[in-house]
């Protein structure tokens, strides 16, 4: 068991304990990895009904200034200037070698940008933004909680508090009244399901979470199922599938870079990205489907049919909805085509696998 003395807590810490969660240290926070029903049940419940996730450990940041969208484009390859007010975009902080410093969601609002970054990276991200965003104020919203309600029933649950919810399309965000709570709500998530992320005052979070959990469709979901859900959805986990040694192109994230930004550059590592878009990359992130029942975990070596190492798994485990092991990782580009046979070295034995397209499940985002 880890040392829990120096860990930060979210506003829902007491509620997690009351619900019987098993708590683990994660990114400096004391977080629920699972509740008594277990990861399989939590995972399947999220895809069948609605799961409540506490993601308050993530960094919520407000950027204000004369033109924060233009300013932020100096740090990310995403098209923030062209983003409409009320919409959100997934993008990346890159370094001069086009390595990925973090991934983030950017919401364009009337008077600011609202940015969500990873818990483990938030201090460095905030320092990075403060030192580079000319003419902008970067405010860390420490007094906000962040809850995610994910799954096909999420929209019905929140509609009981505000009838506008079904009208939001995926990737939209708005400041809304949810009953007596004022929240910034986006229709988004990290599970491959329809759902919402809800930013609200930390001191209201527990009461709001209790209301959500009082709804028949809603169960609490821990970080264990969050990981298996996002892996089935083919979504990257920072520090595992993407990091400073991987570029957006190698990671299969070229879709996050608009035509204008590919041409104009103007972000760290733009020259590397342009070269990789033109000449290709030596390795690519792919989905990997082990053929047997044995999961292949992060760090597992990937071999070709001659037994030569051609890659490594960066996320791997068991996919409860797929009912089979699932993984993703990087392979030499010659092996990236879906259906290519590979071997995975698990406990010294080569296990057969194939590359596959991501995601492993059909995403069900609201149109």
């Amino acid at each position, binding site marked *: 068991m880890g040392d829990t003395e120096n860990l930060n807590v979210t506003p829902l810490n007491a509620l997690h304990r009351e619900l019987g969660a098993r708590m683990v240290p994660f990114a400096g926070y004391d977080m629920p*990895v*699972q509740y008594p029903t277990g*990861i*399989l*049940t939590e995972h399947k419940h999220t895809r069948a009904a609605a799961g409540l996730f506490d993601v308050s450990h993530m960094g919520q940041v407000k950027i204000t200034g004369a033109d924060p969208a233009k300013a932020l484009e100096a740090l990310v390859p995403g098209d923030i200037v062209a983003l409409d007010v009320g919409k959100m975009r997934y993008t990346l902080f890159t370094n001069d070698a086009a390595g990925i410093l973090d991934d983030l969601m950017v919401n364009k609002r009337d008077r600011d940008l609202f940015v969500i970054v990873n818990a483990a990276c938030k201090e460095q991200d905030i320092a990075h933004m403060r030192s580079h965003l000319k003419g902008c104020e970067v405010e860390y919203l420490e007094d906000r909680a962040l809850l995610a309600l994910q799954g096909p029933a999420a929209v019905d649950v929140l509609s009981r508090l505000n009838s506008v919810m079904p009208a939001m399309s995926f990737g939209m965000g708005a400041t809304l009244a949810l009953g007596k709570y004022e929240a910034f709500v986006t229709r988004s998530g990290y599970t491959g399901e329809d759902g919402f992320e809800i930013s609200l005052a930390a001191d209201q979070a527990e009461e709001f979470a209790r209301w959500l959990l009082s709804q028949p469709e809603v169960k609490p979901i821990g970080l264990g199922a969050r990981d298996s859900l996002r892996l089935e959805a083919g979504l990257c986990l920072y520090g595992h599938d993407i990091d400073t040694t991987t570029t957006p192109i190698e990671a299969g994230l070229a879709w996050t870079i608009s035509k204008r930004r590919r041409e104009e550059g103007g972000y760290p590592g733009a020259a590397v990205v342009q070269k990789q878009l033109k000449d290709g990359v030596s390795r690519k992130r792919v989905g990997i489907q082990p053929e047997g*029942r*044995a*999961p292949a975990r992060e760090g597992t070596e990937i071999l070709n049919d001659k037994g030569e190492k051609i890659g490594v798994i960066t996320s791997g485990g*068991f996919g409860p909805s797929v009912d089979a*092991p699932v993984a993703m990782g990087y392979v030499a580009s010659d092996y990236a085509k879906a259906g290519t046979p590979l071997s995975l070295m698990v406990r010294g034995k080569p296990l057969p696998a194939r590359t596959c397209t991501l995601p492993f499940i059909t995403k069900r985002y609201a149109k």
Partner: protein
Amino acid sequence: MTTRYTKDHEWIRLDGDVATVGISDYAQSQLGDVVFVDLPAPGKTVAAGAEVAVVESVKAASEVYAPASGEVVESNQAIADDPALVNRAAQTEGWFVKLKLSNKTELDALMDQAAYDAYLKTL
């Protein structure tokens, strides 16, 4: 047939020369949902404390260590076919292997039920 336990949460129960080995109910509750087991082929010999099997939950893989030295005479096909049986019946039908022990006195060093229960309280 006394059940004895290791500090790594394996149990072992001797019946004649052959001992049945599994993981404790505490261990299965800590692992969570078991989705895969990697079992040894009969004939494999293991030393006390050496890895004899692997149990995988959704989250992670964990080694199962032999509580005593011996030769694997049988692996439990039922948990290979239905890994969740380890969660449902860790100390009965969810056993892992049967070992023909080479030195039964090794069992004397292991905890009995009362000692194991006391040990769990310290965790």
